C-alpha cells in the first residue's frame, strides 16, 4: 500500500469527497515520481471537510501554517495544509477546493466524471492546468503530460515541445491557425522551430509570472495571519486535531480574510 493511495481511499469512503492531484496524480499517469507531498481537490462542503479531518485525526495529523480546512476559507481559493509522521515518512496533505486555472464549470465536470471511480485522481488535461505554476519543474511535467493526449486540438493547446507542435500543425494547419487566437505561441509555428521555441519559453515565463502574482495576492492577504501563526502553533502543539481545528478557526476569524478579494475589494 502507498500512503497517498490509502488516504485517497479513506477520504472517499461512502462518498466522493477528494480527488488526488498534482505530483501524486502524475505518478498514477505513470510519468515520474517527483514529489513527496500529497495534494487533493476536496468537495467544498462542511461534511466532506469534517470527514477528511477525521481521517487525518486518526493519523495524528497537525496543522501547518495555512487556512483552516473550513469551507469559508476554501471557497476563497485558500489552501489548507496538514502533516503527520507514519512509517518513517513525513506525510504532507495539502488541500484546495478551487484549484487554480480550473473554471467552476470544469470543476463541476471533474466531480461528475469521477463519480464511481475506485481511485479518483486528476485527469491529464486538468493536471496540465494545475501544473502551470511558477516552478520550472512543472513545465517539464506538462511537456510529458501533453504526450498522453490524443486529441490534436488539446495537444496544440498544451504541448511544450516545438517539434511536436510543428508535426501536429503539419497534419492540422487550419486548426493550428484557429488556435493561435487562444494560444498566441502557436502563431510562431509558421516561422519555424527556433521562433516557436522562443515563443514557448516566453509563454512559460508569462505563465510563471501570472502565478507569482496570484501567490503574492494571497501572501499579502495572509500577512497578519502569518504574524499570528507562531503563537497559534504553540497553542495547538500536542492537541488532538479536532480541538486544534476549532482553535485555528477561532484564531483565524477576523485575521485571515475569507478571500484575498475581501481583503482588497476592487
Amino acid at each position, binding site marked *: 500500500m502507498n500512503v497517498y493511495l490509502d488516504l485517497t481511499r479513506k477520504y472517499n469512503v461512502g462518498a466522493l469527497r477528494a480527488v488526488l492531484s498534482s*505530483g501524486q496524480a502524475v505518478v498514477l499517469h505513470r510519468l515520474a515520481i517527483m514529489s513527496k507531498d500529497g495534494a487533493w481537490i476536496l468537495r467544498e462542503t462542511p461534511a466532506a471537510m469534517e470527514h477528511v479531518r477525521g481521517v487525518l485525526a486518526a493519523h495524528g495529523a497537525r496543522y501547518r501554517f495555512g487556512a483552516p480546512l473550513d469551507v469559508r476559507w476554501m471557497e476563497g481559493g*485558500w489552501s489548507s495544509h496538514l502533516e503527520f509522521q507514519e512509517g518513517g515518512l513525513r506525510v504532507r496533505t495539502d488541500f484546495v477546493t478551487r484549484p487554480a486555472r480550473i473554471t467552476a464549470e470544469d470543476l463541476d465536470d471533474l466531480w461528475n466524471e469521477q463519480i464511481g471511480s475506485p481511485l479518483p485522481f486528476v485527469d491529464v488535461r486538468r493536471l496540465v492546468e494545475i501544473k502551470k505554476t511558477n516552478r520550472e519543474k512543472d513545465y517539464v511535467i506538462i511537456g*510529458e503530460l501533453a504526450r498522453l493526449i490524443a486529441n490534436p486540438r488539446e495537444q496544440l493547446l498544451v504541448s511544450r515541445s516545438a517539434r511536436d507542435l510543428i508535426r501536429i500543425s503539419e497534419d492540422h494547419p487550419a486548426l493550428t491557425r484557429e488556435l493561435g487566437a487562444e494560444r498566441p505561441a502557436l502563431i510562431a509555428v509558421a516561422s519555424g522551430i527556433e521562433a516557436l521555441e522562443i515563443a514557448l519559453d516566453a509563454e512559460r515565463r508569462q505563465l510563471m509570472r501570472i502565478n507569482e502574482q496570484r501567490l503574492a495576492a494571497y501572501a499579502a492577504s495572509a500577512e497578519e495571519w502569518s*504574524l499570528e501563526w507562531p503563537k497559534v502553533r504553540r497553542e495547538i502543539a500536542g492537541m488532538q486535531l479536532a480541538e486544534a481545528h476549532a482553535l485555528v478557526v477561532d484564531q483565524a476569524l477576523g485575521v485571515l480574510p475569507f478571500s484575498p478579494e475581501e481583503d482588497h475589494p476592487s
Partner: protein
Amino acid sequence: MKPIRDEFLSEEDLALGDLDEAELIAWWNLWLEQAQATNDLDARTYSHGVFTIEPE
C-alpha cells in the same frame, strides 16, 4: 533511425509505464523513503497551494 524529439523526462522516469501496479507502488514507496533525506531542507516550504513558506 529513431527520430529526434524534445526530452522532458529521463528514460528512468518514463519507465514507470512499464511497471505493473505492485512494482509501481514498491518503487513509489522506495522513492518516498529516500526523499525523506531532504526533510530538513524543505521543512518550511510548500509544494502546493497558495502558501510558500511557514513563518518561524
